[in-house]
C-alpha cells in the first residue's frame, strides 16, 4: 500500500515537473526566443585548447564551461528553449534528489519547483549566464553526494568539507547551496561543534581572489550576476528586430516595428534601417516615432546603453562607412559579455573582407571556424570558397566605400555621409540617410544644400517628404515660380502646403493634427527633439 502510494506520488511529481517543463519551454520558445538568440551572440565559444584552458582562470570553471557550451545551442531555432528547459529539469531532478535527503517528498518538491521557477525568471535576464544555473545544479549535486555519505561524523564532515572546496572551485556560488544543505543535514542529525569546519570553505574566495582577479563580491557569487529578474517583453521586441535584421529579414523587421510601435530609439533605428533596405526610408520616415536624428544613427557616448552600442554598427555598415562601422563593432565587442561576441566577430570579418584586409579577415574567420555554429559560415567566406553571389555582394559593398579621405569626429554624421556621396553619388542609402538626418534635426538649409548637391542632379522629382521640406525652404526664401519649377514638385503637395500654412496661421492645431500629422511640416513645427542616449 505504501509502495503504491509512493509510486503514485512519484508519478504525480514527474507529471507536475513535466508540465512545468512544458510551460517553461512554451514561454521561452514563443514569448522569449530572441533573448536567447541574443545571449548566444554575446559569446564566442571556441573549440580550441587555449580558450578552453582559460576557464581555469576564473572561479566556477566547470559551471562556466558547461554553461557557455550549452549556450551555443541557443543559436538554433528552438534550441534555446529546449536547452534552458532541459537544464532546469536537471536542476529540478538534482535538487529534488538532494532535498529529499533532508525533507519529505512534498516539501522537497515544492522547494525545488520554486527554486527552478526563480531560476527560470533569472534566465530571462539578457546577461544572465546559463553557467549560473549549472552552478546551482552543481551545488545541489555536491550536497546530494555529501548527504548520501554513510560515514561517522568526523570523517563525514571532512569529506564534505573537501566536497565543498572542490564545489567552489568547479561550481563557484553553487558551493553556498551545498554548504546550506550540508549544514541543514548536520542540524537534522544533532548538530555537533565539529560541523563548523564547513565554514572553512568561506575562506576560499579570499584565498583564490588574487588568482582569479575578481572583486570580492564576484568571488562569492561567480558566475551568477543577478538575483532577480522578470521577463522584459519590450526588450524582446527590440531583439526580434535586431536579430531579424541580422538575418536579413527586413520585411519582418518592419512588420515587428509597426506591430509594436514603441517609443524607443532602438526600435526607430531598426524601423528606419529596414525602411532603407526596402528602399522606403523617406516614404516611411514620419509614419513612426522619431526621436530627432538619433533614430537614424545611434549616438555613441559614455552614456550610451550597451544595446545602442551593439546595434550601432549596422547603419554605418549599410551606408558603406566601414571605419565607423568597424569602430562601432569593436565597441560592441569590448562591451559584450567577456568581450567576445560571435555577432561582432562576424561583422569584423565582413568589414575586413570588403576592405580587402585579407589578413585581418583571416583572423576572424579562423576564430569562427573553431566554433560550432559559425564554422560553415566562415568557411563559405574564405576567398577560395566564396559563392558568386557573395563575391557580387562584396563588389556592391565596395562601390560605396569611400576613397576620399577626410577626418571627422565620432558623431559627425553629416560629414561622414557627404564623404560617402562625394565618392559615390549613386549611393541611395547614404543619400536618403543624409537628407533624412538633416530633416529630423530640422536643418532645412543643410537639407536643401545636400539635396541640391546630391539629389537634384539626378533630375528626378522629389518624394513627398523631400517636397514638403523643399516647400518650407522655398517659402522662407520667397522663391519665384522658376525656382519652384526647377524642383519638379508635385502640384497637389504645393496646394497642401498652402492649406497647411493657412491652418497654421489660424492656430487650428486640431485640423493640423487630423490632416497633416504625418507631414514634415507638422514635424517641423511641433516635434520636440530629445537628446537620445539610448
Amino acid at each position, binding site marked *: 500500500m505504501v509502495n503504491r502510494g509512493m509510486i503514485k506520488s512519484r508519478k504525480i511529481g514527474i507529471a507536475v515537473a513535466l508540465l512545468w517543463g512544458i510551460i517553461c519551454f512554451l514561454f521561452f520558445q514563443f514569448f522569449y526566443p530572441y533573448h536567447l538568440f541574443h545571449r548566444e551572440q554575446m559569446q564566442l565559444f571556441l573549440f*580550441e*585548447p587555449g580558450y578552453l584552458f582559460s576557464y581555469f582562470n576564473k572561479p566556477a570553471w566547470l559551471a562556466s564551461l558547461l554553461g557557455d557550451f550549452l549556450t551555443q545551442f541557443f543559436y538554433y531555432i528552438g534550441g534555446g528553449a529546449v536547452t534552458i528547459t532541459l537544464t532546469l529539469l536537471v536542476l529540478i531532478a538534482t535538487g529534488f534528489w538532494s532535498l529529499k535527503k533532508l525533507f519529505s517528498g512534498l516539501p522537497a518538491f515544492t522547494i525545488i519547483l520554486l527554486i527552478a521557477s526563480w531560476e527560470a525568471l533569472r534566465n530571462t535576464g539578457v546577461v544572465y549566464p546559463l553557467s549560473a544555473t549549472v552552478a546551482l545544479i552543481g551545488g545541489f549535486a555536491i550536497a546530494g553526494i555529501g548527504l548520501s555519505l554513510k560515514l561517522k561524523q568526523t570523517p563525514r564532515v571532512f569529506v564534505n568539507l573537501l566536497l565543498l572546496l572542490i564545489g567552489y572551485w568547479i561550481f563557484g556560488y553553487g558551493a553556498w547551496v551545498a554548504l546550506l544543505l550540508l549544514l541543514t543535514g548536520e542540524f537534522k542529525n544533532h548538530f555537533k561543534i565539529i560541523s563548523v569546519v564547513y565554514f572553512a570553505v568561506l575562506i576560499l574566495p579570499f584565498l583564490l581572489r588574487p588568482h582569479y582577479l575578481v572583486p570580492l563580491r564576484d568571488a562569492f557569487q561567480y558566475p551568477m550576476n543577478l538575483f532577480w529578474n522578470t521577463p522584459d517583453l519590450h526588450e524582446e521586441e527590440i531583439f526580434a528586430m535586431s536579430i531579424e535584421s541580422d538575418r536579413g529579414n527586413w520585411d519582418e523587421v518592419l512588420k515587428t516595428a509597426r506591430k509594436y510601435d514603441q517609443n524607443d530609439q532602438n526600435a526607430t533605428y531598426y524601423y528606419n534601417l529596414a525602411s532603407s533596405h526596402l528602399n522606403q526610408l523617406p516614404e516611411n520616415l514620419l509614419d513612426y516615432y522619431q526621436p530627432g536624428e538619433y533614430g537614424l544613427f545611434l549616438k555613441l557616448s559614455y552614456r550610451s546603453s550597451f544595446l545602442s552600442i551593439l546595434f550601432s554598427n549596422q547603419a554605418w555598415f549599410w551606408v558603406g562607412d566601414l571605419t565607423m562601422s568597424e569602430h562601432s563593432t569593436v565597441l560592441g*565587442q569590448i562591451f559584450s559579455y567577456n568581450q567576445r561576441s560571435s555577432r561582432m566577430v562576424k561583422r569584423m570579418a565582413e568589414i575586413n573582407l570588403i576592405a580587402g584586409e585579407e589578413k585581418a579577415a583571416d583572423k576572424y574567420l579562423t576564430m569562427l571556424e573553431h566554433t560550432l555554429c559559425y564554422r560553415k559560415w566562415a568557411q563559405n567566406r574564405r576567398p577560395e570558397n566564396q559563392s558568386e553571389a557573395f563575391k557580387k555582394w562584396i563588389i556592391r559593398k565596395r562601390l560605396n566605400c569611400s576613397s576620399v579621405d577626410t577626418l*571627422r569626429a*565620432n558623431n559627425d554624421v553629416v560629414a561622414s555621409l557627404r564623404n560617402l556621396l562625394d565618392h559615390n553619388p549613386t549611393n541611395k542609402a547614404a543619400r536618403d540617410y543624409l537628407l533624412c538626418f538633416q530633416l529630423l534635426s530640422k536643418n532645412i538649409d543643410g537639407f536643401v544644400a545636400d539635396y541640391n548637391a546630391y539629389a537634384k542632379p539626378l533630375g528626378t522629382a522629389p518624394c513627398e517628404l523631400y517636397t514638403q521640406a523643399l516647400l518650407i525652404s522655398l517659402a522662407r526664401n520667397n522663391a519665384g515660380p522658376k525656382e519652384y519649377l526647377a524642383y519638379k514638385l508635385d502640384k497637389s503637395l504645393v496646394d497642401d502646403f498652402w492649406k497647411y500654412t493657412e491652418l497654421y496661421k489660424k492656430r487650428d492645431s486640431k485640423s493640423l493634427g487630423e490632416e497633416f500629422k504625418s507631414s514634415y511640416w507638422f514635424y517641423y513645427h511641433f516635434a520636440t527633439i530629445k537628446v537620445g542616449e539610448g
Partner: protein
Amino acid sequence: MKKRLMILGVLVLLFLISCKQSPQNAKTVDTFPAIYPDYINVTIPENIAPLNFMLTDSAKNTVVTIEGKEGSLTVSGEQKIQIPIKKWKELLAAGEQTISVTVTCLTNEEWTQYKPFSWTVKPDEIDGFVSYRLIEPGYEVWNKIQLVERSIETFDERVLADNNLTKNSCMNCHIYGNNNPELSFFHMRGPNGGTILNRDGELRKINTRNNKMIANATYGNLHPSGRFGVFSSNIVIPEFHSSQSKRLEVYDSASDLIVIDFDNDKVNTHPFLSDTATFETFPVFSADGKSIYYCSAPYKPLPDSIKSLRYSIHRIDFDPENGTLGTEVDTVWNSETQHGSACHLKTSPDGKHLLFTVANYGTFPIWHREADLQMLNLQTGEIDILKDVNGPNSDTYHSWSSNSRWFVFASKRDNGLYGKPYFSYVDENGKAHKPFVLPQKDPEKYDFMLKSFNIPELSTGQVPFDAMDIEKIYNDTKIEQVH
C-alpha cells in the same frame, strides 16, 4: 588463445607504428617551410623562451630537428611544434652559436623536407621581463584592461593591474625608468585614480596635474635617479578617417612639457615649453640624465592641417641636481628635411642611439601603416631606417633592453589590427637584425586573442607589486597633489 593474443599483439604494434610515422624517403625542396610565427633566420638571445611555431600549411605530421653547437633535439607534432623548455635551455646553454632547424612534413601521404633555416644565438642576454597593456584595438574606448608582466625566459605571466579590480577605470601603459623594476609608473584614471609611482617598491598615488597645466600628465619618462619625471600634458582629440585602412587619427589641440620633482611633489616648466605657438610631446631623459629629448611641431589649425603637422626631435639640457631645464634647444632631427613626423623617443641605455617612430604626419602613428622605426646614432648623427626591422604596418612603441643590444616594439605587421611584441637585435656595429615575435607556449595563441599588446617595455626583473596591491592603492591610498 595464444595465437589470438599474438595476432592482437601484432595488430597493436602495427597500429602504434602507423600512429607514429617518421620521415622516410622525404622529398627535399629548396624553399623554407611556411611557419607562423616567422622565425626563419632570426637572431635570438640565449635566454629566450622556446621558439614554438606552427606550420601554416596543412600537415598531418611534422618533425623538426634542431641542431646546435653541442647537441640537437627532435620535436614532432601535427602542425604545432612545442619545444620542451628544459631541452631548449640545455641547447642554448652552449652560448653563441648558429642553430640549424630542419622541418619535415607529411602532407598528402608524402614527406617533404624543407630548406633548413637558422637561429643565430647571441650571448648578449635580453632583459628577463616585458610588460605590456592588453587592450582591444578599440581606438579610444576601453572596458577591460590588464597590465601584464611576462617572463621572456619562460612563458609565465603575471597581472600587474586589472581594471576589473579598480572599477573599470582606464589604465595607461606601464613605463620603467632605466629598465629598473624598482622604478616605474603608470597613470590610472577614474575617480580614485592617479599616477602610480613605484620607487624602490614603495607605491605612491599622485595627482600629476596642477591648476596651471592644460591637461593630465600623459606621455612620460623617469629620470635614472628616480627623483624626476618628464611628461607631456596633452589635450588629445581622436577623429576618424573616412578611409577604412587609416582608421583613426589622434592629435593634440595643445601640448606642453613639464618636469615633476617626486621628492617635493613640485612641477617645473619653462615658458617656451608651455606656450601655444608649438606642440611639445613624447619627452625622454638621455641615458646620463643630463638632457631631455622631445618632439615638437609648430602650431597648426587642426584637423584641417593635419597632413602638414610634422614633429621634429629636439634636445634640451637638464640639471639633475635641481631639476631645471636649459635655455638652448638643439634640433636633433628636423621634420622638414626628413619629410616625416617623429614620435615615441627612446634613448638607448648606453647613450649611443635614439630609437623613434617616423610617420608621414601627425603624432599618433599606431594606425599609420607607413609608421616605421628609425635609429639615430647620437654620436655620428647617422640615421638608420631599419630596413630589416620594419614591416608593412605600423611599427612603434619600442623599448630598449638594459644592455642596449635588444629592443622590443609593438608591430601590427601580422594583420594590421592587433599589435604584438617583436624583438630585434642590435649588433656591435649598430646594425639591427630581423625581428621575431614574443614566443608563446601555444604558437596559435595570437590567433585566438582579441587584444593588442600595447607598449611593451623591458625590465631586468619583476616589479615589486601585483594587481591586488593596485586594487588596494586605488581604494585605500590617499592621493598626493603636485603643486
